[in-house]
């Protein structure tokens, strides 16, 4: 009799049966979330947030005597450009040199920004790997690189004729990516 009375009074306090499983369910969901985060390969590429926005204005002095420096005004002449951020000390830049040479041969205007470099090293680099650049601006203090949202070398920006950044390529352009780059240039030219 007293047992029955007890169970009746505590029935109001006791949660409904399914809610007992709620904390375990929440915990399982949390574990699943952590596992997904752990097992998914991490991508630490820092992309520029400026894609789709106008190129920041800059005016870089020539990196080599007797050559033109690079001003952002050049990029608004109605034709799409490649802006290649590179340096003589950068190994992947050597890897992408043949691809840049091929693009230059196809008539693509390539503008260079050399980052934290010296004239002698740059000259040696161009003699060894070829010189596909129309102009090379010297970004010795790295401030234009920061203004472009670039986090390393090499990086290549495709800028349309109005000076809007349409695509950013992080890392070297490999041979199998040439077609993709040409297509992006074509899209930027339309």
């Amino acid at each position, binding site marked *: 009799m*007293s047992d029955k*009375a007890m169970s009746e*009074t*505590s029935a*109001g*306090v006791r949660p409904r049966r399914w809610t007992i499983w709620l904390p375990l369910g929440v915990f399982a969901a949390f574990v699943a979330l952590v596992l997904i985060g752990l097992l998914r390969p991490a991508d*630490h590429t*820092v*992309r*520029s*947030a*400026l894609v789709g926005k106008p190129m920041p204005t800059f005016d870089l002095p020539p990196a080599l005597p007797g050559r033109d420096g690079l001003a952002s005004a050049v990029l608004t002449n109605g034709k799409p450009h490649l802006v290649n951020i590179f*340096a003589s*000390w*950068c*190994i992947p830049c050597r890897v992408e040199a043949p691809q840049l040479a091929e693009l230059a041969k196809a008539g693509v205007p390539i503008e260079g920004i050399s980052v*934290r*470099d*010296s004239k002698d*090293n740059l000259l040696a680099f161009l003699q060894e790997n070829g010189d596909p650049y129309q102009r090379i601006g010297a970004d*010795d*203090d*790295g*401030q234009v*690189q*920061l*203004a*472009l*949202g670039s*986090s*390393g070398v090499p990086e290549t920006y495709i800028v349309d004729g109005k000076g809007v950044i349409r695509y950013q390529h992080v890392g070297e352009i490999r041979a199998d990516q040439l077609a993709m780059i040409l297509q992006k240039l074509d899209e930027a030219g339309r």
Partner: protein
Amino acid sequence: MKRLLLALTALFALTAPALAQQEQSTAPYAYRQLDDPAKERTAKALMETLRCLQCQGQSIADSDAPIAGSMRSLVRERIAAGETPEQIRAWLIERYGDYVSYAPQLTELTWPLFAVPLVFLLVAFLLLRRRFTLRRDALDVAGDAPGDEA
């Protein structure tokens, strides 16, 4: 064998420095503090909350990567020119996204991180209140009918 080893060592000694010859930033304030100590303190505090983009686990205050030197100079030059730390942070986030900042930003994507603890506190408060008031009711019922026990 010994001669080969010697030749290899000589080869590496000759080529290694040539490959890793990254120039340090020529930016004026990469390795130089601002003359005004108050401004240098403000700049240092901001630099400790900005991520080096090359060595991604370090702040630009800790890192010796050349790009971190360029970023330090950017921070110091802008502080000296009178910009606030949050303006500089916003300028960098505009270019690199939230990732560049160690200080969490309140955005469309991150607001649940700030809201959920408050929601949990509220739920805990409501649950506990319900539990305590119910227990008092149960006690009241038990106290009202002492004859039932007998």
